[in-house]
């Protein structure tokens, strides 16, 4: 059984035109895991398509590592099931699962050289020596560490160790490759470079990657889809764009990038058009999640119903700053404000502005030559909050 699934996984680079494969690569339903009185997973369900780069994103302690260990087979679960390629593997021990892991600490065998590390999995499965040789060689070529075969892990740099760990997992042609914060220990520049390589590798091989991380930027940059986790639950699952532009609640909105939150009272006009009464005037809101994609506007009905109290979120880069005329009356969705603080971050300029009720907003503008990017603390400005950039949240 295991052999079959392995060959399927290896011989099938995801071709875009093909019909949907019969089974998701991974599927789990209602996973529950308790450690004493602590519930690490409380009813997690989702499925990963073949050839997908899927990320589990969340703060430490949210249960993402537990989830990964459940899939590896290192940890048992109290309820629910796991299927790999349509086969139930809930009780299968780790060494019989067609998944391989790139560990956060790499977990390379210190007493073995690079070659033997990469060959380890194949030897455990009893692959013929000639095959081992060929597959190890091609795996080393894949991650570009040829020539280091006889080094021990301790003689390699962090980036090289990372590549060896990747080769050691990939050489087994796993149905799913699990990545446990694989880039966490590397410095920023190397991390960026390896991110790109990882993504290209995944696309080229058509493999299914399940990536666990607490780095939201990395998750957004690499993934086809992301599941944001908190306290053993999935808060929201979607494409990076959906998560960033249509966060469901405060937690998701804040965890993925910076966010301004505005409280107000909702006065519904229609399902696609709200007025929200805030301390500094009425705001027009388009709660529909309308967005423009490939030149056409897609409207999805709002997830959130217009209740009495509503929380709106707006990203700092979606707020516009206009020069304040001396006697100009703010229009709808425009608020008079005063710049309190200016932070220069290179590519962007970040302002902290104070509104009439003494609340503050963060505004981020591209560092271009426009006058808005040159505002100084103390200056009076008008903040424009575009109706389609205001996102109503669940809580």
């Amino acid at each position, binding site marked *: 059984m295991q052999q079959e699934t392995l060959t399927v996984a290896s011989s099938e680079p995801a071709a875009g035109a093909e019909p949907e494969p019969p089974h998701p690569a991974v599927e789990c339903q209602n996973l529950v895991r308790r450690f004493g009185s602590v519930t690490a997973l409380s009813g997690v369900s989702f499925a990963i398509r073949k050839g997908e780069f899927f990320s589990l994103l969340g703060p430490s302690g949210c249960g993402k590592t537990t989830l990964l260990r459940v899939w590896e087979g290192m940890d048992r679960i109290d309820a629910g099931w796991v299927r790999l390629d349509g086969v139930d593997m809930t009780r299968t021990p*780790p060494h019989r699962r067609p998944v391989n892991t790139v560990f956060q600490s790499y977990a390379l065998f*210190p007493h073995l050289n690079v070659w033997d590390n990469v060959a*380890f999995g194949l030897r455990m499965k009893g692959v013929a020596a000639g095959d081992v040789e060929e597959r190890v060689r091609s795996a080393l070529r894949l991650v570009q560490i040829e020539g280091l075969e006889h080094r*021990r892990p301790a*003689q390699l740099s962090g980036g090289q160790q990372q590549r060896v760990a990747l080769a050691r997992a990939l050489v087994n042609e796993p149905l799913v490759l699990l990545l446990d914060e694989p880039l966490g220990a590397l410095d920023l520049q190397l991390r960026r470079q390896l991110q790109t390589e990882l993504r290209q590798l995944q696309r080229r091989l058509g493999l299914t990657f399940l990536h666990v991380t607490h780095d939201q930027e990395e998750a957004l940059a690499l993934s086809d889809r992301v599941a944001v986790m908190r306290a053993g639950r999935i808060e929201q699952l979607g494409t990076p764009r959906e998560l960033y532009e249509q966060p469901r609640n405060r937690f998701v909105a804040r965890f993925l990038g910076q966010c301004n939150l505005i409280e107000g009272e909702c006065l519904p006009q229609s399902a696609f058009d709200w007025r929200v009464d805030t301390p500094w005037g009425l705001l027009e809101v388009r709660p529909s999640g309308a967005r423009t994609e490939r030149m056409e506007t897609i409207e999805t009905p709002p997830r959130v119903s217009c209740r009495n109290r509503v929380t709106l979120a707006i990203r700092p880069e979606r707020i516009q700053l206009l020069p304040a005329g001396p006697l100009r009356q703010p229009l709808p969705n425009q608020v008079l404000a005063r710049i309190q603080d200016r932070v220069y971050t290179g590519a962007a300029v970040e302002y902290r502005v104070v509104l009439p009720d003494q609340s503050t907003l963060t505004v981020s503008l591209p560092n271009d030559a426009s006058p808005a990017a040159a505002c100084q603390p103390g200056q009076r400005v008008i903040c424009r909050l575009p109706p389609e950039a205001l996102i109503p949240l669940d809580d």
Partner: protein
Amino acid sequence: MTEPSYVAPCAPVSRGSPVCDRKGTDTPLRQGLGPAALVCGVPVLWMLLFFLFPLLGLAVMSFFSRGPDGEVTPPLTWENYRRLLGFGELGFDPFYPVVLGRSLLLGAATTLLCLLSALPLALWLARLPRRWQLMALTLVVIPFWTNFLVRTYAWQVLLSPDSPLTRLLNAVGIGQSGAGLYPGWGAVLTAMVCDFLPFMVLPIYVAAERLNWTLVEAAMDLGANRWQAFRHAVWPQLRPGVAAGSILVFLPATGQFVVPDLLGGAKLAFLGNLLQQQFGPSRDWPFGAALATATLGLMLLALAWRARSAARQETHRP
């Protein structure tokens, strides 16, 4: 020059040059040499006077002959070592090589049994919750709290044919009825393992306590079953501890003679009691010295092997 001023050792040569700086850092060390000599000198002197010199004397003595009244006299000779290998005055007699082999066998058997019992024990200890570990380790060394001889005599009582323990074992079908382990190899090995077990458990525990369990997970992730995971991910990490423990057990166990004497029925000669005999009743000091020197040489060889295998372990660390 009315008052002495501090001058850096190499300041006149090249002020502020890198060479000067490097030499400058030596100064505190050199200043500290006086107290250091005082602190280390006494033990070093002690070891020289009462350990190294007598040892050298012993090695020299092993080339002398025994006089008619047991005195150490010239001529210088290889005779003692020839005797040790079995070539005595009365032709070839394998008595001494056999004693040597028997002692090595005793040491090896003790080491092996200790290893087999210490491995699971140490791994279990290392995985205990922290607060239990200290207590468990104390229990491991508790046998040391009773006198060695008392312990050995206690085994005589416990393992004798008509002891309650033996009867109990016989009742559940272990061992022949009316036959205890004492006297015999069974009793010797039981007592030896009990005496030397802590020396094996502690070094392995130290290795097991620092064990990187992620490597075990990595091995299992890569398709290793439990045995393979132990063989490829746990054992290599424990090896230094096992080597240290084996030496700590093997060396004294090989020279042990009280236990085989008291529990083996005093019928067999071992290195230990042979040695004691030469310096005691037989009054053949040169031969005793040869015996001791040869044993010491063997043990140094074992240590050298250990050092080499440890060095091999270290080579991959830059």
